[in-house]
């Protein structure tokens, strides 16, 4: 039986000290990995990670996820390699194509996403292995890049993926995949593509850590869990493609209306339109028992790492503690 790992996502909207305190709590609660998101409009991911690395001892940590458009993969390699000096053997690296809207604000297009990720993974691996990078890729060309310092151990590279081709690429070349979904049916569909990629790469599934990167909200009082999840789900619904909405029985007009509310800064109006069906489709939300049931069923269909993503709950520290007390022991020792 595959041992299930647990990750937690932090968004560095919070000051560094808060993120570090949450990470310390996560480590003590039994989480295996801390993923920190990478958006230029929040605090810097690597400064956050360096601080977390300093104040923790066991937990693994890495960007979840960075992208090769804002940051060249040699710089990502440099950042994770440097981080590995603070936390040897504890660094992991998540990379994906980034958020289209955020990239657009700085005039960057997501060009050749598959090639960009394939090349990036190669460059990060070559650079961190110490041999250096020489690549005539479709997206990146690197000629003789090399570090003047040693890394010491391999750094696993995870690919953040949603679409079929990226999921398949993750299966083909990733040390892990971070599937951005919360509903069992979406995850089952995604796993088909990951498995295709694994087969194409001549690998086996045990070589790929299948991470499910969820929108997660837990509280003893289910209403509080829903309250915390609602804004996050509103944003997910607003940005979800039509076929995905329809597959969950969500009217496109309802999503459009939420999107318009968000665009106009009418948060109350937008969030007020989030339905139970939307919460169910795009988050894992509820009491510890409800969440446990949903996580458990994902473990049975092939997930090897559960990532509790934002918002976690109205009280982040409280949710981390409950997770450590009521979820992790029941899924690792039963």
């Amino acid at each position: 039986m595959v041992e299930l790992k647990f990750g937690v996502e932090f968004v560095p909207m919070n000051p560094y000290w808060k993120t570090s305190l949450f990470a310390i709590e996560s480590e003590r609660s039994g989480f295996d990995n801390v993923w920190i998101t990478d958006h230029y409009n929040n605090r810097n991911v690597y400064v956050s990670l360096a601080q977390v690395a300093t104040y923790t001892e066991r937990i693994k940590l890495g960007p979840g996820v960075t992208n090769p458009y804002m940051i060249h993969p040699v710089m990502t390699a440099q950042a994770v390699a440097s981080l590995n000096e603070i936390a040897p053997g504890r660094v992991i690296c998540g990379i994906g194509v980034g958020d289209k809207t955020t990239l657009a604000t700085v005039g960057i297009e997501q060009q050749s996403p598959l090639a960009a990720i394939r090349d990036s993974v190669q460059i990060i691996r070559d650079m961190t292995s110490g041999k250096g990078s020489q690549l005539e890729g479709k997206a990146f060309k690197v000629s003789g890049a090399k570090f003047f310092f040693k890394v010491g151990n391999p750094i696993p590279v995870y690919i953040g993926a949603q679409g079929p081709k990226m999921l398949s690429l993750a299966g083909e070349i990733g040390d892990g995949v971070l599937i951005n979904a919360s509903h069992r049916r979406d995850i089952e569909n995604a796993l088909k593509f990951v498995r295709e990629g694994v087969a194409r790469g001549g690998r086996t599934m045990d070589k790929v850590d299948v991470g499910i990167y969820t929108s997660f909200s837990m509280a003893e009082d289910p209403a509080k869990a829903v309250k915390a999840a609602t804004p996050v789900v509103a944003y997910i619904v607003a940005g979800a493609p039509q076929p995905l909405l329809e597959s969950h029985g969500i009217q496109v007009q309802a999503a459009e209306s939420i999107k318009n509310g968000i665009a106009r800064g009418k948060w109350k109006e937008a969030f007020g339109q989030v339905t139970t069906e939307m919460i169910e489709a795009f988050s894992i939300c509820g009491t510890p028992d409800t969440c446990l049931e949903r996580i458990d069923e994902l473990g049975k269909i092939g997930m090897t790492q559960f990532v509790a993503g934002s918002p976690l709950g109205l009280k982040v520290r409280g949710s981390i503690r409950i997770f450590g007390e009521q979820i992790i022991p029941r899924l690792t020792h039963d």
Partner: protein
Amino acid sequence: MLRYVEPTAKIDPSKREKLSDSLLDLILDSGNADRLTPELARSLMDAARRRELSTETGLQILLKAGALLEPEKTTGTLEAEGFLELASELKKSIGK
């Protein structure tokens, strides 16, 4: 002089854990996070890493942080948990 620091020594060790938890939650939930000085933030993280938040020193750090970020809620928490002397000293320190 932070007069409310001294009475932390008198806190019954069996009650320190609960008070420490309440103060840490109050600090983490605060919307005034930017009021925390880098020096105090470092002390807070150091104490958390060393599992010392419920020691006398740890409680003093939490009280200093609470007084900066949420003075009224901090005194309210102290009163609610029965630490009246500490609450009174804290009120004096923050001029209430």
